[in-house]
């Protein structure tokens, strides 16, 4: 751990500080979810609604996409541009898979009458998981623009942009670890 591998670049540090504020946003949403966990208003609770194998599929998609994103940065540093592009495309496809699965899950809940207005529990669930999903969506748009820039011939700023994107994407996976554990797994047990 004493080996110093990361440079303290101003933009990267600034972006990291932004991610910390994003962390606070999720903290507040988690706190709200935890407080309202039992407020089901006579309706269904987590254990009635959540399909764990399905959630595992989402989790795997996001985890592998985080891995491929990290590999893309590695590929850039080892001058394997084509591999980098392929890995970024893979990241995007897996991210889209995650988003699709999540939207389908939301749709199913809403159609069954268990939308965000059903109970306090469901309001906080949709807000927390929905906010994460919104972040993923924005990340995917960012990735798409990055890929367009790369294919058009990216300049010196590519490394910085790629690093910032990978920070964002890794961060979203870290948040998902807690959503997966606290919302879905705990919800299933309790």
């Amino acid at each position, binding site marked *: *751990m004493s*080996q110093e591998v990361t*440079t303290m670049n101003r933009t990267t540090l600034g972006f990291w500080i932004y991610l910390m504020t994003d962390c*606070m946003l999720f903290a507040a949403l988690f706190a709200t979810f*935890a*407080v309202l966990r039992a407020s089901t208003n006579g309706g269904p609770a987590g254990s009635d609604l959540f399909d764990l194998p399905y959630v595992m599929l989402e989790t795997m998609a996001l985890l592998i996409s985080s891995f491929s994103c*990290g590999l893309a940065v590695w590929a850039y540093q080892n001058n394997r541009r084509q591999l980098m592009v392929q890995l970024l495309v893979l990241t995007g496809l897996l991210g889209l898979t995650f988003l699709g699965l999540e939207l389908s899950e939301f749709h199913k809940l809403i159609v069954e009458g268990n939308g965000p207005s059903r109970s306090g529990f469901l309001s906080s669930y949709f807000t927390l998981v929905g906010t994460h999903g919104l972040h993923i969506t924005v990340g995917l748009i960012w990735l798409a623009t990055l890929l367009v820039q790369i294919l058009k011939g990216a300049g010196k700023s590519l490394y910085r942009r790629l690093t910032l994107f990978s920070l964002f994407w890794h961060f979203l996976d870290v948040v998902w670890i807690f959503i997966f554990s*606290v919302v879905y797994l705990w919800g299933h*047990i309790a």
Partner: protein
Amino acid sequence: MSKVTSVESRTAPVHIRDYLLGFGASLLLTGSAYFVATSDMPAKHEAMFLIGILAVVQCGLQLMYFLHLGREFKPRYRLMAFVFALSMLLIVVFGSLWIMQHLNYNMLYHPAQQEKYLRGQDGL
């Protein structure tokens, strides 16, 4: 102490070993958490505690291996920012839970509501 401006042009090499380790460990920890949640073995509170620990460990590993936290050149601004954010997060989350639980307890005015609430708490 070298000046900060000279640091900017250096690019940090990432090792593929970090990503492989982080990914492998995350897979294991996620699988374990899923197993704990779906098996009947552990009691409810133990299971929740285990899953919580697994989540925290996975978070720590991903922070180290994917986000390279703590591996910076000094001064470790990133680490400082993270520790501060983490402290605030803990205060917000546990503070909210504590306050709301106390509010629930103190705000019960109807005896029937109170009884129902107290029965819902473990051990009563």
